[in-house]
């Protein structure tokens, strides 16, 4: 939080427009972190799903495997389990690609805002990550 605003000096007049840009930067910066966290989680999930799918390949289609639904395991045939996994995989991949799109567009927005704000405030503003 301390990274915004702190070093602003009134030698440079801050207009309402500038304030709006600073706000936009702050909001989207938080969003970027949220989305990146989500994305990492979902990618891990996808790796797990793919591993499960790979494991099922060694088994015969008619064999029975316990498949986890929340707190219970349902005994499904390998074929059914595969269908379930593929279904989950597809929806997960959809979510990942939409998250990736959002991350890309936020990154672009942030770098645009950065350019504008640095152009106006120079070293009087610090928009870099503090940690």
């Amino acid at each position: 939080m301390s990274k915004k605003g702190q070093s602003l000096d009134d030698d440079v007049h801050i207009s309402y427009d500038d304030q709006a840009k600073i706000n936009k930067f702050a909001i989207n910066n938080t969003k970027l972190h949220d989305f990146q966290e989500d994305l990492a989680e979902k990618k891990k999930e996808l790796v797990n799903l793919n591993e499960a799918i790979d494991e099922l390949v060694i088994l015969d289609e008619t064999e029975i495997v316990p498949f986890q639904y929340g707190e219970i395991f349902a005994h499904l045939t390998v074929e059914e389990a595969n269908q379930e996994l593929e279904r989950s995989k597809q929806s997960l991949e959809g979510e990942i690609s939409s998250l990736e799109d959002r991350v890309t567009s936020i990154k672009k927005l942030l770098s645009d805002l950065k350019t504008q704000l640095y152009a106006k405030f120079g070293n009087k503003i610090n928009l870099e990550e503090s940690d």
Partner: protein
Amino acid sequence: MSLEGEKTGNSLGIPKAIFLEDVDKFMADGGKTAEEVLRKLEELFQKYRVMEVNLLQKKEKLKVQIPDIKMSLDMIQLLKRNKENEKTVETDFILAHNLYARAEVPPSDKVGLWLGANVMLEYTLEQADDLLTKNLKQANQSMEQTDSDLDFLKDQITTTEVNMARVYNWDVKRRQTLKATA
């Protein structure tokens, strides 16, 4: 002169932080010392922070709730398929932590939904599906609303932060000028 604006633009009636267009003018018109104004701003800032914590908690709750509902919906789809194919499915269900028992689930068109408050109600699969789908939709809407409230709040927090910095700097400069002329 107030630092809080109208309570509009969001669902929770969060007051808007006023942007200080001109610190000199604001300080002159208000007739308050920088300390007083800073204290007011700090107070407002803390209020926003409390609201933010509440909203973040709400969001975390929803983040748990949504996958839960999705999982129940998946389960209902399985039950529906089993009903259609008249198939009995074997399950291992949890009895206690790390202890599972086996149960056969015959084809059925009924399912019990846990409604909370120690109540479970039996629904047909179709009704349960409808109800859960509705709940999922509501949870997603609530998530969107929470996100937009958080955005709004963040706006006010940043504005207040910048206001504090500017009033503070204004005061430092004022003191310096006083010293220089003294």
